[in-house]
């Protein structure tokens, strides 16, 4: 009985939270005073009107689209005062170009798109926190897919300048070649985890394309299992395979032991060096010359344990 009462109280509490939201959303449906119609807008803003016509916003078949509401004025607000004052700035129209407040701009879009599952988590988006509004990436008037202002990765790298630099490095995922997109890995409209990745963990994300690394393996390499980014960078590196540094130095960060892992490998251990032993730990791919199953394996005995079979 006591448990039931607790559940009832919890339900009532949730209901008390939901009802005001519903009331507010219904109240926001608003009235239709002060609208002049799209034809009036067209009279002065012919280019903008025509670009609106080719966008999805002009599709009447889309329920709730501006075409089914007040066309231009759905987003820009009622135009009566603007028309009566002969146009120009400061006449009450909502301009996405001149409005500095990102939240206000985005809220215009969200008033229709808030029920879209693609932007359910916009409130958690780093873009929102950093004052990026929808119109930074989307053009209301564009005819491009998803009304984007540019294609990826150019669209993203226009702001993420350090990522652009990394994508240009010699070892990179094929984004600049157009064979991958930033949004394959990142949920641009918000996600729960850091960097808004489209998975619960980094490894889960990487396994989507690199499923052979998933295992589960008999011989595991713990840092690999915990986070691919222990050894790799996601966007670009000077070192092949997007490594954070070059084997053997990468491996020696962790592996110092009484056998060869702790040995100093220098210029003398390269192909051109004159060392009398230990060179095949340094030249070419370093440790990976032998330890190819570094992501885990099923090999026999210590051969498997040390990732060489």
């Amino acid at each position, binding site marked *: 009985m006591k448990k039931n009462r607790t559940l009832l109280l919890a339900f009532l509490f949730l209901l008390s939270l939901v009802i005001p*939201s519903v009331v507010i959303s219904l109240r926001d449906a608003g009235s239709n005073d002060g609208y002049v119609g799209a034809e009036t807008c067209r009279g002065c803003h012919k280019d903008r009107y025509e670009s609106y016509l080719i966008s999805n916003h002009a*599709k009447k*078949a889309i329920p709730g689209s501006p075409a089914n509401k007040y066309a231009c004025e759905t987003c820009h607000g009622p135009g009566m005062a603007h028309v009566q004052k002969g146009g120009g700035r400061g006449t009450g129209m909502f301009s996405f170009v001149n409005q*500095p407040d990102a939240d206000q701009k985005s809220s215009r879009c969200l008033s229709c798109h808030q*029920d879209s*599952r693609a932007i*359910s988590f916009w*409130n*958690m988006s780093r873009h929102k*926190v950093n*004052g990026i509004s929808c119109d930074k990436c989307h053009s209301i008037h564009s005819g491009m897919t998803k009304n984007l202002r540019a294609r990826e990765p150019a669209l993203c790298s226009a702001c993420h*300048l*350090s990522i652009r*630099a990394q994508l240009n490095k*010699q070892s990179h995922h*094929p984004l600049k*070649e157009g*064979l991958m997109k930033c949004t394959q890995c990142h949920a641009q409209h918000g996600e729960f*985890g850091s960097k808004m990745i489209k998975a*619960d*963990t980094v490894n889960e994300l990487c396994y989507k394309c690199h*499923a*052979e690394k*998933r*295992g*589960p*393996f*008999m*011989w*595991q390499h713990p840092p690999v*299992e*915990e986070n691919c980014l222990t050894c790799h960078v996601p966007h670009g590196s*000077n070192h092949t395979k997007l490594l954070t540094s*070059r084997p053997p*130095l990468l491996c020696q*960060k*962790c592996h*110092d032991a*009484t056998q*060869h892992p*702790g040995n*100093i490998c220098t*210029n*003398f251990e*390269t*192909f*051109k060096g004159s060392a009398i*032993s230990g*060179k*095949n730990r*340094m*030249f*070419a791919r370093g440790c990976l*010359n032998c330890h*190819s199953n570094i992501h885990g*394996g099923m090999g*026999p*005995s210590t051969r498997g*344990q040390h990732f*060489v079979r």
Partner: protein
Amino acid sequence: MKRLIISSILIFSIASFSVALAEDDKLSGEVSATGTLTSVGGNKAKFNEYRDVRDGVYGDVKLKYESEQNYVDLNAQDMGYDTQRYSIRGGMWGDFKFDLNYDELPHNITYDAKTFYSGAGSANLTYPTHPPSTDTNTWNTFDYSTKRKNLSGGFQVDTLKPFFFDVSASSEKKAGIYPLGVAGTTPGGIDIELPAPIDYRTDSVNMAAGYIRNPLRLSLGYTYGSFSNSNLNLNFRNPATANTASATDTFTMPPDNHYYKVNLLGSLRLPYNSKLDMKLATGSSKSDANLLTSYVADVPGGLRNIALSKPNFNGQIDSRNLAMSLTSKPFTFLDGRLFVKYDETENKSDQITITDPTQSPSAFTNPLFDYRKVKIGGELGFRLPAKFYLNTTYSYGTINRKRDDIPENRDYTYGAELKWKGLDFMAARIGYERLDRKADFNTPGGGTSDIEYFIRRFDAARKYQDTYKASLDFFLMENLNFSLGYRYKETNYPDTTLGLTGERHDEFYVDADYLIGEWIRLFAFFDYERIRQDQFQRQTASTVDPTLPPTSTSFNWTAFQKDESYGYTIGADIFIIKGKLTLRLQHSYLESNGSVDYTYLLGGNPLPAGRTQDNIDISNLDDYKLRYYLIKLTYNVTKDSSVAVGYAYEKYIYDDAQYNGYQYVPGTSGTNGAYLTGAYSDPSYESHVVFVTVSYRF
């Protein structure tokens, strides 16, 4: 198969368009053809690492049909080439959407690699007589290259709004040859590079169904994935063992696996401009493999038998994830977020006890790794007077992992970022973040006589990490944008004696874009990055304590690795005849300089013969320079048609101590020995590409 897929897509698209056109609605599109003439000197694989640029004609087609009720888009790109991509997207406005895609992704690594093995790219590598020939002129050539072919599609139903249903599926095949390396004998001995087969198939299905209407979202999602490998073992004749003729060595390849995940997503809008979001997920990945009961060794018969507690391995790792977030903006001057994130893996795989009399101890078992991570935190943003905005963050996280050395971490992270938009022509931002990671270290039983006592592995070691960043964006005129930024990250590992002791990371970038009148758009960017990583290590055969005086065989050493790179692009779009004739000029340059400063800490002991503290250093570690020039003239013949002609020059120069002086067989025995194949060697190239593109829009 590829032809079948492409044919299906084309037939489906033509059928779709036929149906569509019957309704006499709007059809638009673009057809373009690009003819290229190329000249590539040097490494053609690196030049075409992720592309397929060669002499020929590339065709792109875009078709777009729209009616009042439905739409279909067809895109075909690089038709017939290794980078070809096809997609059809369509649907009925507001009711449903579908997409069907096929694309190919090449990854070219090294062409004309060499091996003494026959059967490169197969699961059985052999050679006729032992020892194999060291004359590489007699070896077989092959290409290290893989290609992914991905067929995917999806369907989204919106017609029952506010209920929705999404389903998508993909099937990807990856095939080719990839370099793998094995130790000929172990410990010590030569290494052997094997041209290994890649023949993978990865299938996945995603489904989600739910309800979404303000203020509530609830959905249930399901993901299933499977991976299958046609080659579970790579058999090879091992030239390092005397019994090579009678025993075949085996390298184990990735096992087949499958995976599923179920997730529940929920969101609830709350009063005071607040929202509660939640995600609950559970999943499992499984694999299985038959285990080998012997391995190749220098023993009579060539095989050393081992005993296993179980002949096959069944892997299973379960995962559980929970994420909750409460965001709120109760006042215009205040917003905030509280969050919890929990990620757990539970390793339920088999533990196999292996008995190998040659090892000490002779019986050993595979450890099972898993972890549990919890992170809670919050952030508060304050809109301050004079158009300042301050965002503060704090989080606390714990990581518990099944690992001998460092089983637990506690992370304390706090930071602040101040933004200012007080001037119409400028925005400024400064930020700071501090991570204080505490680590529980399990002191080994052997104390200072065990080298593990001194090692702290950087991924879990105690550390302080400070990150500073600053950026300025200028909008000096309507047509001039100018941005610059700087980021500095410093990490110190105070408990580490042996291992990575510190890292410094500087990053600086500038970006500018200027439209002069209506005639010229100038654009430029520059970036600079410097990474320094410091290691303190010990080389020893016996005495492990780094605080003891050095001897000629047991001593400490340091390595300071530096990666310095910078790049820039400058260019101009010159609108010679506005809207009609445009000239693009562009130049890009990228340079990377890597080096390692080694130091022997030998005290009074002499360095090994011939070595000094200076001549051991490496001054060229993954050094490269990339020069790129582009000149392109575009002429819009009519409103709907255009012609572009251009020339691109690219030169890539690679210089690396570990690859310079490359030898296929530097030795046939000992730890200087190897049988290599040329993988990744000498990737330098120079290319000239002339192209003409004709486009027609309708």
